[in-house]
């Protein structure tokens, strides 16, 4: 597991949801729990870290590699980040 750093993040998504993170560091091996009311940006923070959304400005770093910045963006498919989603059961028809 690598260190994850989000710095000077300003993010506005397509639904005009805005998020601001000045500095968030998750050290290697550290377990962090994000708590907050609905709509405060917990999931968006994770999506920014995983590469499912590109921040409007700021920088995301995983290990020693910058994965999102003003000029660079590595998508989720290349970041090798694991995510356990909640997916409801579905039927085929």
């Amino acid at each position, binding site marked *: 597991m690598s260190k994850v750093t989000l710095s000077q993040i300003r993010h506005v998504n397509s639904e005009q949801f805005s998020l601001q993170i000045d500095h968030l560091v998750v050290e290697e091996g550290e377990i962090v729990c994000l708590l907050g009311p609905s709509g405060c940006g917990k999931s968006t923070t994770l999506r920014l870290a995983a590469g499912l959304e590109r921040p409007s400005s700021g920088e995301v770093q995983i290990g020693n590699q910058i994965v999102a910045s003003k000029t660079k963006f590595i998508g989720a498919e290349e970041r090798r980040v*694991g995510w356990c989603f909640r997916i409801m059961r579905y039927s085929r028809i």
Partner: protein
Amino acid sequence: MPYPGQFWRLDHDPFGYFDNALDSFTRNYLGFSTGLLLSGTLAALMFAYVVRFLAISLGTVEASMEKITPNMERASTVMGVTGIRMLARVHIPIMSGSLMAALLIVFVDVLKELPATLIMRPFGFETLAVRAYELASDERLAEAAGPSIAIVLAGIVPVIILSRAISRSRPGQKGQV
């Protein structure tokens, strides 16, 4: 409720206009006749079928697309499956049952469709429904039984397949009709 004349007005006027324009152009400048390319072939009939049955199939397909949540696509992306591969490995497997159901429903409806087929079919083109209608109109009821029973048999097989597929998709009812 649409009536057959509407198909004529909606489809044949623009098709006929295009055919006439193209034909007069090729006659005048290229020296040969194209004939009725759209209004005299199966193209017009196919267009009528698409317009008539699009709503039925679209409803079924849209319902299946609603089952695909954003989290499914995100999970796929995180695991490195994007674009066409996501379509093939996530969307189509989830939607395959509904796509098949839409296909079978439209197939059965097209099989027994009569008004548009009667009006827009090319000369000499007959479907089972047209054949049964013509024979029944001539009071040749015994002969009309053949195409009629063929419609019933061809229509009932997809219904059995669909019922089995629906049964299999429900837990605790494997393979039961």
